[in-house]
């Protein structure tokens, strides 16, 4: 005889359990954790490079550089210096999950860390389903992409708290409309904080640094 067995369980409940554990540990240590997501080539590594270089005297930063293959990004970021950088090679997987992050965190000395950056795999779809225990997701989009991307990937833009619009030095070289991308993003997520930057020229980065410092300060107070 056939029976129906109700389960009502999240498919990713094991990931969510590990993510909650990571979140508790990082919160106990007053560490701000940011999960950086974007398409490949939007400038996650560039933004982190600039941030490590500029903020190394003000903040203790740790960084997990996720990639499908190669440790190139981790090497670039290590050169930016003054911090703990660990590569996380997924070996084919299109996203990081909480188990992978947990494995790296176990080997890190977090005792003096203020900020943990988790650079996810370049992909606007899959990483949206996986909680990594972060405080928030920061989504990057660059002016060399389509300005309708928030509409194409609503799940990611809805789950992110900050949108960094990068490569504003290249505005005017394509038909990318910065006002349209902002309107599209806010239509998906009205609470999104939007920062406009150029990681090569430096525009707007001071605002990003101050936002970051503010996050650290707020977390220490809690």
């Amino acid at each position, binding site marked *: 005889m*056939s029976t129906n*067995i109700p389960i009502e369980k*999240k498919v990713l409940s094991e990931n969510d359990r590990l993510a909650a554990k990571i979140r508790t540990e990082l919160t106990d240590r007053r560490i701000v954790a940011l999960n950086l997501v974007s398409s490949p080539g939007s400038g996650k590594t560039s933004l982190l490079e600039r941030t490590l270089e500029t903020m190394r005297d003000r903040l203790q930063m740790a960084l997990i550089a996720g990639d499908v293959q190669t440790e190139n990004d981790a090497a670039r970021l290590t050169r930016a210096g003054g911090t703990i950088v660990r590569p996380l090679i997924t070996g084919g997987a299109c*996203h990081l999950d909480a188990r992978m992050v947990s494995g790296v965190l176990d080997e890190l000395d977090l005792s003096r860390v203020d900020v943990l950056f988790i650079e996810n795999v370049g992909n606007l779809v899959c990483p949206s389903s996986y909680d990594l225990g972060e405080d928030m997701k920061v989504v990057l989009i660059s002016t060399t992409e389509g300005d309708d991307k928030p509409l194409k990937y609503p799940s990611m833009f809805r789950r992110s708290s900050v949108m960094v619009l990068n490569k504003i030095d290249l505005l005017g070289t394509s038909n990318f409309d910065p006002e349209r991308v902002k309107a599209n993003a806010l*239509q998906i997520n*009205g609470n999104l904080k939007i920062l406009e930057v150029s990681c090569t020229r430096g525009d707007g980065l001071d605002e990003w640094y101050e936002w970051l410092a503010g996050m650290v300060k707020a977390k220490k107070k809690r």
Partner: protein
Amino acid sequence: MHELQIATEIIDIARREMIDHQLGSLEEIGVVLGALSGVDPEALAFSFEAATKDTALAEVRLNIEQVAVEARCNACNREAEVEKFVFICPHCGSRDLNITRGQELDIAYVRGEVETS
């Protein structure tokens, strides 16, 4: 394309439920998929077939219930329909909406035959 990993998770959970409930065979797995889950239903169905092919679960049907996005407006406290992912309250224009449905990535049930000893 993380649907293959999702399919594998679903299969693992279903296998554990089979053991816990002493099911000798499995006929169907019910999954609830929100439009904002980040998982594509067709890719999931395809991945599930690929993952179960030539295994003991090859005949198991994956029943995917798709759920549209629903929200409640925090400003006027009314139900706000979200069409095409436009998160703007149709009643008062507020962008401050709480999603009430549409993010599900749940395994709802398994159906199978109880083992007769």
